[in-house]
């Protein structure tokens, strides 16, 4: 068993919200992702002082990974530790892609992660996800546009396109996976 750090306010607030999100509550999921994004921004900004322009891009890449991998969440683990482990993985991956050899340096200041204030204001992005979305195969683009952007239910989207509901769900999932791959290569 990994020893659990003392629960802090952030985790205490996030945890019940995340449990509802995992069970399918869309509003709770949106709110969870917003809170996590604030935490990610703090976490990554402290570790990317040499790459300040890439912070928000990595926040977005991490959010995409969190969404695609939400099935790997382990209820025994605090939500914020899980999310930050994904962020750390993405940060190491970014450095490797940039050819940096240095190890992941944790910031030297003594404040523990839990005491860092979340950063709510968004930073500018370098890479536009919309242009990457436009590079997805037509069918996946259409499924994402209808269900994720216009907000149609899967049943409505199925009626409008004549594609079965399960095929649409697969297209959305594959499309987001493909988007995550494009993000890594961009």
């Amino acid at each position, binding site marked *: 068993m990994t020893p659990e750090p003392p629960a802090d306010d952030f985790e205490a607030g996030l945890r019940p919200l995340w449990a509802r999100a995992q069970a399918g509550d*869309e509003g709770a999921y*949106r709110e969870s*992702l917003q809170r996590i994004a604030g935490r990610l921004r703090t976490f990554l900004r402290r570790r990317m002082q040499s790459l300040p322009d890439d912070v928000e891009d990595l926040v977005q890449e991490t959010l995409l990974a969190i969404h695609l991998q939400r099935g790997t969440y382990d209820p025994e683990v605090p939500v914020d530790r899980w999310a930050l*482990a994904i962020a750390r993985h993405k940060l190491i991956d970014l450095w490797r892609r940039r050819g940096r050899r240095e190890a992941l340096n944790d910031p030297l200041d003594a404040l523990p992660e839990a005491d860092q204030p979340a950063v709510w204001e968004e930073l500018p992005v370098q890479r536009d996800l919309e242009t990457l979305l436009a590079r997805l195969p037509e069918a996946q683009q259409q499924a994402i546009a209808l269900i994720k952007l216009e907000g149609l239910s899967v049943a409505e989207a199925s009626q409008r396109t004549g594609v079965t509901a399960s095929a649409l769900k697969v297209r959305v999932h594959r499309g987001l996976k493909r988007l995550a791959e494009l993000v890594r290569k961009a």
Partner: protein
Amino acid sequence: MKTSDLIDLLATGAGPSPRAVAMRRLVPVLVLGALASAAAALAVRGPIPATLFATPAPWVKLAYAGALAGGAAWLAARLGRPIARTSGPVRMLLLVVVAMVLLGTLTLLAAPAGERLETMLGHSWARCPINVLTLSLPALAGALWALRGLAPTRPRAAGLAAGLLAGALGALGYALSCTEVSPAFIAIWYSLGIGLAGTLGAALGPRILRW
């Protein structure tokens, strides 16, 4: 796209989180990997004589390989998560290996002093680990594919788990075509073959398990 728009996009119509993602990917690997290994062993080397199944030897091999495959699959499933709790599966794997080594040591001690070396080496010690490793390759490819679709943050450890899983499945198939009878042989050479597959997996992990 702004981050708040991305969050909207992700949350809209998201539905509940998918369940049992690790098992859904690993169970087919277990089944197909075992089938591939068994089919290749039977096709290339042929089955052991049916009379051998009246002795404990093939059953010891199958039980050892099966238990290791179970433990390694459990470990791989855990290492497919960003924060992996590995102590349970690691303890199980150690327990299985220790039990096998104990059994091997006991049979060795029971053998007359002059025959001990022969008991350990059998007639195929030089081929056994390589055969186990070769038979594990399809399962290794499958296990690495399965883990790549999850979220391993310790790629070397996850690769090791994939390799051990594949090695155990290789040994499972090899047991059907291997006529060695001594538990001492199994404890040494089967373990070595499985360990080789684990090492290969650990070497490939950092290269393949990127996401």
